[in-house]
C-alpha cells in the first residue's frame, strides 16, 4: 500500500516497468480503472432488485420457449411432407414427444420460482406446449396416422350373428 502511494505521487499517468529500486512489494497494485469503493457500492445497491428482475426475465424466456418453437415446427412440418417414411415419422415423433416431455417436467423447470408471475409463466409454458402438441396431432392427422375413420376400427368389430338358420339343397329324390 505504501509503494502504490509512492508511485502515484511520483508520476501519476506513467507506468514504470523497469523499476530500478528493488522494492519488494508484498501486494500488487490494483489494475488501472479498478476502484474498490465503487465496487462495494454497486453490490450493495442492486442486490435485491436486479437479480430478481433477471430471474423473471430468464423464466419468461423459458416459458415462452415452446411458443417460439411454433414457427420452427411449422417449417419442419411443411418440409417433412405427408408421406409416411422413416424421417417424417421421426420428425413427427419428436414433435409429439418433446412437448409432452416438457409438460411432465414443468415442475422441475419452474422449481426455483416463487414470485408474483409464476402462475402466469407456468400457464404460458403449458399453453405453448399444448399448441405444439396440437400442431403435431394436426400433422399426424394430415399424414393419416390418427384412427379417426371407421375403417380404423373395423378389425375390432364383433362378427355378425344370425337369427334364422337354413339347410337344404337339391332334392334327394
Amino acid at each position, binding site marked *: 500500500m505504501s509503494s502504490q502511494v509512492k508511485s502515484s505521487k511520483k508520476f501519476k499517468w506513467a507506468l514504470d516497468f523497469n523499476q530500478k529500486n528493488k522494492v519488494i512489494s508484498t501486494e500488487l497494485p490494483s489494475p488501472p480503472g479498478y476502484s474498490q469503493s465503487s465496487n462495494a457500492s454497486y453490490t450493495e445497491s442492486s442486490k435485491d432488485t436486479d437479480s430478481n428482475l433477471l430471474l423473471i426475465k430468464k423464466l419468461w424466456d423459458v416459458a415462452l420457449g415452446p411458443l417460439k418453437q411454433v414457427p420452427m415446427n411449422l417449417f419442419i412440418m411443411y418440409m417433412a411432407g405427408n408421406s409416411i417414411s422413416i424421417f417424417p415419422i421421426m420428425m413427427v415423433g419428436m414433435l409429439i414427444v418433446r412437448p409432452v416431455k416438457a409438460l411432465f417436467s414443468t415442475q422441475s423447470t419452474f422449481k426455483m420460482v416463487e414470485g408474483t408471475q409464476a402462475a402466469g409463466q407456468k400457464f404460458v409454458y403449458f399453453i405453448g406446449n399444448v399448441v405444439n402438441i396440437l400442431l403435431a396431432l394436426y400433422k399426424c392427422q394430415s399424414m393419416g396416422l390418427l384412427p379417426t*375413420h371407421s375403417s380404423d376400427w*373395423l378389425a375390432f368389430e364383433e362378427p355378425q350373428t344370425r337369427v334364422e*338358420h337354413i339347410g337344404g*339343397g337339391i*332334392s334327394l329324390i
Partner: protein
Amino acid sequence: MGMLSIYLKPNFLGLLKFLNSVNWCIVLFSLINLSECIYEDQIGKFDWRQTYVGRVKFAQFDTVSTAKKIIVATEENVLAALNLKTGQVMWRHVFESASTGNIQLLHVSEKLVTVSGSNPYLVRRWEPATGVLLWEWSLTLQNEEYAEFSEWWVQNGLLVHMLPIFGSHIEVSMYNLMTGQNRGSTSKLPAIWINEGCALSVPYYTCISGEAGSQQILSVDVTSNSVQIINKPLSDLVQTHEGILRSLDGNSIIPAFILNEKKLVIIKNNQFEVTKVALGDTLASVTIADGTGEPMVIQTWSDSSKGFHLKAHSIATGNDIPEIHCTENIVNIPDPEISGTMCTKSAKDQLVCRILVTAADDSLQLMQQEGKILWSREEALANVVAVEFVDLPVSDLDAAIESEFDQKEGSIWAAFSRRLHTQYQQLQALIQSLQRPEGTKEEDTSPLVRDYFNLHKIIVLVTDVGKIFGMDNLSGAILWKLYEPNLDTEGVVMFTRRSARHPPHDAYLTIVGKHEETSNGLIISLNPVRGTLVGERILHLDVQVMQCTILHQTDNEKLHALLLLDKYENVQVFPQFSAPLVENMFLYVAEKNTAKVQGYALTYDGKEVIAQKTWSINLGGDSNSRHRIVKVVAKSPSERVHSHGKVLGDRSVLYKYINPNLVLFVTEGPDPIHKDVVVATCVDAVSGVVAAAQAHRRARALPLAVHTDNSLAYVYYNDKHRRTEIATMELYEGKQRWLAAGAAFSSLASERAPGVERQAYILPAAPTAAASTDTERSLTDKHVLLALSTGAIVEMPWLYLEPRRPVTPSPEQREEGLVPYAPELPLPSEAVINYNRTLHRINSIYTAPSGLESTSLVLATGLDLFYTRVAPSKTFDLLKDDFDYYLITVVLAALILASYSTKYFASRKMLKLAWK
C-alpha cells in the same frame, strides 16, 4: 372387452391369434405376395398324392418281364401296371372317361395289347415295362346296332372279334394283331339259337335255347373253320329244365361255364363234361388256373357268418387241393371276384399261387395260396362323392385343463388342488415323453389327438360304391373303413353333428343317403375318429328323404339334431326329444330338372315339427321354361366372417352384404333368341327374396361355382366366343352399414337390396372343379382353387377375380390395391399348388379351415387324391418352416453369456480402479 377376454382366456395362443386378427397386417402381407409356390425341399412336406386306378375290369399277370407286375384295365378306363410285391402303380395311362376310352380287351403275353373305345375301336400295343405306346390301329365296325355285345379276344396271334346278333347269326372277324389286316372276310355263322343269356368261354359260345321243358344247350367254337355245333338236351346235364349260364372270371385256361350256379361244365374234345367240383356258393367266383401240370378250379366266395372263403379243386378228380385255402379269418372282402391267378411250382415242388381278388367294395387284394393278403388297394377312393374334415379330440391332458377352466363353481381350494393335480399330470406326461425315445418305436404314427394349430384332422370320405373311409390328413393313411353295400351315394350328404370339442362326448358324424333298392332314406351315424357306429347306427327309413339338415342348436349332449324332410313333407327329428329345439329353422328344396325351388319354415307346434311352405320360386321364369339347375351353392354353415367391409382408398369403408342365408343357383335353359342362357340367381333361402341375378346369353353352364363371404363366382362356357369364362359378383351394403356392429342378421327384417358389383373374366383353360379357400375367421384373403383339365390345381387370388377391378384406376383405387381390369385371367405356373404332380380327372375340391387363420386345408378328389394346405395371405402367423431355431438359440445363448461375462469383467475392473 368381451371379445378380448375370450381371446385371452384359454392360453397364450389365444392372444397370438387375437394379435393376428389385426387386419392391416394381413392387408400389408397380401399386397406383397400374390404368388403361391413352394420350394423344392418342401415337396411332400405338407402334401400327399395317392394314385388310384378304379375298379379292376381285367387283370393279367405279366410274368415275362423282369420286373414282375400285374397289368390291370379298369372301369375308370385306366390301363396300369401294379408292382407285384407292393401293389404300387408303376405306370398308368388314363383314357377318355367317355365310352371312347372304354377298355374292351386286355391281352398280356410277350406283348401287351388293348382294345379300347366303341366303334371305332383302337387297338394299341404297349411296352409292358414302361407303358410306352408302341403302335395303334383303328377298327370301325359296319354293324353298329349290336356293337355293345361284341366280344374280343386274342387267339394264335389273331385278334378275334365276335358280334352275336341274337336270334340270327354270329359275326366273327379275325385281324392280324400287328397290322390290323383282316384275315379273310367276316364270317357269319348262322345261329338262330343265340340270345342274351349266352356265355362266352373262349373260344366257345354257349347258349341255352328252346322251349321251356325241352331246352337244349348248344355251343359252338366260333374260331374254327368248320362250324361244329355241340348240342345236348339240358336235362342230360342238370335235373331242372331251366338253365342259367355264367362265364368264369379271371382268364380261365379251359373253356368252361357255370350252369344254374351249381355245376361247373367244361368243354373238352367238343363235348360237354360236368366236373365233379362242387361250388361253394351260388355267388362264388370261379376260375380255372394252370396248377402246373393239371388245371385246377379256384373259387372264392364270402358269406355273412364266416367271411371269406378260398378253395381249389383238381378239375380231373374233383379232389380238394389243400395248398390253396384260406386260413386267416378275413371278413372284409364282400363278394370277392377272382381277377387273375398265377401259379408256379417252387423249388421244393410246392405250389405257389398269387390270386388277385376284386371285392364288391372295389378293393383289390393280392393273396397267397394260404389266404394271406400280400397287399390291398382301396380302389373305391377313385370315386369319392362326399368329404368332411373332422377335428380330432384334444388329448386327455388338455381336456383336463379345459375342464378346469370350465368349472366355475367350487371354492378356491378346490380350484387350487385341481391345478396341482393337472400340473402333476403334465409332469408325468413330460417324463413319459422323455422316456419314449429310448423304448420301442411302437407308436410311429402320431396319436389321434388335436395338435397345437388344429392342422391334424380326420378326413371322412364317402365313395360311390358305398364304402366310407376315415383318413389321417397328414399322412393320408386309412384309419378305418366301413362298407355299407346298401348305400346309394347319389346326392349323399354328410354332417358333423358333434365335433370332438366336447369331452367326454365323442365326435358324431351322420351320413344321409339312399337305400340301394328302395331309394328310401338310409342314415349312417358313426364316430369319425374310430369308425364305429354310434347313435342311430345304420337306420333304414321307410320313406324317401327329400332334404335334410342339422339343427343349429345343440341338445344337452352337445349334439346337433338331424332334421329330415320326407317325400310327403313331414319332418322327422333325430333324436326325437330335440324337436322342441326347432326354432328359426328354414329349409329349401330345389328340383334339378324343373328349376323350381321351394322354401319351408320348420316350426315346433308343441307336439311335432311341421314344415310349412313359405315361398316358391321358378328360376326359369315359368314351369315350362325347360331350365334346369346346374349348381346350388350355399355358404358354409360354419363360416364366421370377421371382416365386415373393405377399406377404400379414402379410408372410408365399403360394407359387405353378409347374408348367411343367401344361396346361389346357377341354371341353364334354352332361349328362343340366344340359343342357351345361363342364369345365376342369389336367393335368400329364408324369405325367398332374389338378392341379385345375372343372365349370360349364348352360354352353357358348368357345375362350378363358389360362394363365400359376400362374393360369388361361377363358371360357364361362352358359346359365342367358344371359351370358358368366369363371372364374379360381390354384394355390398354401401358406405353406411344397415345394422349396428355385432347385431344379429335377420333375412325377414331386412328390406333393402344390396348393391351388386359384377364382372366376367376369360379363363384360358378348361376347369373341372372349383372351391374357395376357407379359414376360421375369414380374415385371410380368399383364393379360388381351380382344377384344370390339364391336371393342375391353380390358386387364383380373389384380387384378380374382384368385380371392382377398374379399367383405368384412379389414384385412390390404386392405393386400395385394385388391379387394373384385364379380360384374361393369368394362370402362372407358380400358382399351381400341386406343382408337377399331375392329377387326373379332378372332380371336386374340398377345403376346411385349420386352427391357424392363415392356413386352409385342401383335398382334391378325382381319380387321384391330393391333399395340401394353402396360405392365401402367406403364413403370417407361423414361422417359416425353414426357420433356423438352432441359430437363434445359439445367438441368444451367446448374447446372454456375453452380457454376464462383461458384467463380471466390468466389476473386476471397477475394483481394480478403486484400489489404485
